C-alpha cells in the first residue's frame, strides 16, 4: 500500500478514487489552482497568515471537552467533544474557507462562488468574502433555502448574493452543478470555494489539509489530558470534510479506530437515504470517481436526509478509498436516531448540536454503552444547531 501521506497521486487519485473529471474549460483552471496550492502550502508566509486567522478570527484552537454527563448517561466509554461548533460562524466549515480565501487572494481572484446545503458553508464563505472584501455568490437548492431560512438571511447580511437552484430536487448536488456552471462561465476572476473534500483534484486534498487542524489539535489535546491517543474517533459525513479533518492526522496510528457516520434517512432499505458508501456504487460525478447513489443506468439518484448538510448522493474520494482499504468503518444513522441524539445532547450537555452532528452523536449512543470506561472516544462536534430549529420543530410536530 502507498504511504497515506503520499496520497493522492499527482493525478489526484486515492487508489481508484478521485481524479479530475471536468470539462476542458475548467481543466486549465484546476491545474493552475493545483500549482498555486502546492506553492502556498510550502510557503512559510502563507502558513503564518493562515495560522493568524485561525487563531484570531476563527477562534482556534477549539476545546477538547470531556462530555461528563453523556459519559455518565451511557455508562461506558469516556466521551470527548471536539468543539468545532464554537468556531466563528458555528461549524468546522470556516477552517477550510479561511484557507481557500487566502489562496484566492494570492491568485488575484476577486469573485468568490460556493455551493451550500445546510447553509453553514455558504455562511462561512460569505463571512470570509466580507472580511477580504470580495464579491460572493452562493448557490443553494430551493428545497434547502426553505428549510434553512436563517442561514439564507445571514448570508445576505454578510453581503452575499444567494441564488436559488431549482433543478433536480433543489438540494446540495444541484447547487454544486450550478456553481460549476458559473465557474465555467466566469473563468477569469472567479475562485470556487468547494465546501467539502469532494470535487476535482486538488479540492479533496486541499480541503482535507485545511481541515486537518481539527485532528492535529485533538491529538495534542488528548495527549495533554490523557497522556495517550484516543481509542476511537467518530464524525458525521456529508461530503466528509469534518470527518477527514479529524481522521487524517491519525490514519497511521493503528490503535485508533475511526467511524464515519452517513445519513441513513428513512433507512437504507427504503432507498431514501444519503449513505453513498453503504447504499451506493462507484461512479463519476462532480469531478471525481467515488461512491454515488445511482440507478443501473448511471443516473444519479436524489439523496434524502433530515439534515441538509448530509443530503448529498456522493462522498469525498478519500473516504471511498479508506472504505475500500477498511481503514475506516462507515455506518449509517436514520433521521429518527439523529433526532433522538440531538435531544439527548441538548438536555445532558447543554449543547444544541447541528442535525448533521447529531448523526455522529447517535452512533456513540449505540457504541459507548458497550465499551469499557477507559475507552477514549472523540466525537467531532462539527456544528451548532441554531440553524435547525425549524426542521427539528417540524419533525417533532412542534412550533415556536
Amino acid at each position, binding site marked *: 500500500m502507498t504511504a497515506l501521506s503520499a496520497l493522492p497521486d499527482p493525478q489526484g487519485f486515492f487508489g481508484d478514487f478521485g481524479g479530475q473529471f471536468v470539462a*476542458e474549460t475548467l481543466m486549465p483552471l484546476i491545474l493552475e489552482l493545483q500549482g498555486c496550492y502546492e506553492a502556498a502550502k510550502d510557503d512559510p508566509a502563507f502558513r503564518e497568515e493562515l495560522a493568524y486567522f485561525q487563531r484570531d478570527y476563527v477562534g482556534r484552537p477549539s476545546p477538547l471537552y470531556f462530555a461528563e454527563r453523556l459519559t455518565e448517561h451511557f455508562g461506558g466509554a469516556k466521551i470527548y467533544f471536539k468543539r468545532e461548533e464554537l468556531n466563528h460562524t458555528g461549524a468546522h466549515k470556516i477552517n477550510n474557507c479561511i484557507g481557500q480565501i487566502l489562496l484566492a487572494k494570492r491568485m488575484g481572484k476577486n469573485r468568490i462562488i460556493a455551493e451550500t446545503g445546510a447553509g453553514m458553508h455558504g455562511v462561512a464563505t460569505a463571512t470570509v468574502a466580507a472580511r477580504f472584501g470580495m464579491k460572493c455568490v452562493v448557490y443553494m437548492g430551493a428545497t434547502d433555502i426553505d428549510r434553512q431560512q436563517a442561514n439564507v438571511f445571514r448570508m445576505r447580511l454578510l453581503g452575499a448574493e444567494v441564488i436559488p437552484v431549482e433543478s*433536480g430536487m433543489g438540494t446540495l448536488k444541484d447547487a454544486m452543478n450550478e456553481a460549476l456552471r458559473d465557474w465555467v462561465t466566469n473563468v477569469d476572476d472567479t475562485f470556487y470555494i468547494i465546501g467539502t473534500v469532494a470535487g476535482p483534484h486538488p479540492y479533496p486534498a486541499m480541503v482535507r489539509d485545511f481541515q486537518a487542524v481539527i485532528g492535529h489539535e485533538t491529538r495534542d489535546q488528548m495527549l495533554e489530558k490523557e497522556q495517550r491517543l484516543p481509542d476511537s474517533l467518530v464524525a458525521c459525513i456529508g461530503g466528509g470534510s469534518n470527518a477527514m479533518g479529524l481522521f487524517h492526522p491519525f490514519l497511521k496510528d493503528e490503535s485508533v479506530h475511526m467511524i464515519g457516520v452517513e445519513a441513513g434517512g428513512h433507512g437504507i432499505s427504503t432507498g431514501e437515504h444519503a449513505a453513498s458508501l453503504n447504499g451506493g456504487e462507484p461512479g*463519476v460525478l462532480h469531478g471525481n470517481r467515488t461512491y454515488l447513489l445511482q440507478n443501473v443506468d448511471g443516473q*444519479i439518484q436524489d439523496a434524502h436526509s433530515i439534515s441538509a448538510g448530509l443530503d448529498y448522493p456522493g462522498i469525498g474520494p478519500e473516504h471511498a478509498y479508506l472504505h475500500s482499504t477498511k481503514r475506516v468503518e462507515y455506518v449509517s444513522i436514520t433521521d429518527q436516531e439523529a433526532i433522538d441524539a440531538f435531544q439527548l445532547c441538548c438536555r445532558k450537555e447543554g449543547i444544541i448540536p447541528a442535525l448533521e452532528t447529531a448523526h455522529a452523536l447517535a452512533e456513540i449512543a449505540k457504541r459507548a454503552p458497550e465499551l469499557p470506561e477507559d475507552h477514549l472516544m472523540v466525537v467531532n462536534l462539527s456544528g451548532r444547531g441554531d440553524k435547525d430549529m425549524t426542521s427539528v420543530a417540524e419533525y417533532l410536530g412542534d412550533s415556536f
Partner: protein
Amino acid sequence: MTAQANATDVSISRITQRFEDLKAEGRSALVTFVTAGDPDPETSQAILDGLPAAGADIIELGMPFTDPMADGPAIQKGAQRALKAGQNQRKTLEMVRRFRAHDQDTPIVLMGYYNPIYRYGVEAFLNDAAEAGIDGLIVVDLPPEHDGELCLPAAEKGLNFIRLATPTTDDARLPKVLENTSGFLYYVSVAGVTGAGSASSEAVEKAVERLKLHSRLPVAVGFGIKTPEHAAMVARSADAVVVGSALVNTVEQAESPQAAIEGVHSLTRALAQGVRTARQAR
C-alpha cells in the same frame, strides 16, 4: 452491409469520409445536436431519422444525464424530459441501430457525460456502440488527463474520440488536447455552458486559424449558435458548425410531438441553407 463491417473494413471513418466529401464540395458541415429520447422515444426517433434529409451532415446525439454540469438550461431540460420518458443508454443505442437500417452514411456522435458509460461498463459500451453504428464519442468530463479511461479503448474499437478545445485551452496545453483526438476537433467558442453567449466572427476566425496551426483535423465550432445567419457566419471559417440548444428549445416549445418533429427539421433546413450558402455569399 452491417455497421460492424463498416467500422472495421473501411479504413477511413464515416466522419473523415464526410469531411472529405464536403471539402470537395467546398462547404462547411452542419452538425446538429438533439437529445436521445427527448421528448419521448418515438418522437425522438422520428426527429433523428429525418435529420439527414433536412440537411444535417453529422448528428450529435445527446445521452441524457441527471447532472449535465456543462450544459445550460435548454439541454438540461431536454435531458430531464428524456429521462422522465424513460430514456436510458440501451434505448439510445437502439435508436442508432434503427437509424442505421436506412442510413449508412451520416456519422453519428454520442455526446454526454462519463457516468452512464462507466456504469454500463466501458468495454461492453464500446462493443455495443460500435455494433449499433456509432462513429464517435464526445464525453464532456473526460479531459486528456484521463485518456486511459475511455478515449484509448474507444480508438482501439475504431470509434473516434472527439475532444473539446476551449478559449481557456492555451498553446501550451493544446498539443495534449489534440494528442488522441480523432474525427474532428470541437471548438467551444465561448467559456460557458451550452446555449450561452456567442463569439464574434473575428474571434471565431482567429481561433480556427490557431487550431489549424496545431492540427490537420477538421475544426467544428459550437456553443451559442442559434440562427441561420449566425451559422453562416461561422461556416465561413470553420469546417463545421454545431447547433444544439436552439434545436432542443424547439422541442420544448412544440405543442405536440408532430410539431416538435417539424420544428426541429425546419430549423435544420434553415440552418443548412445558411451553412451551404456561407462561402458563396462572401
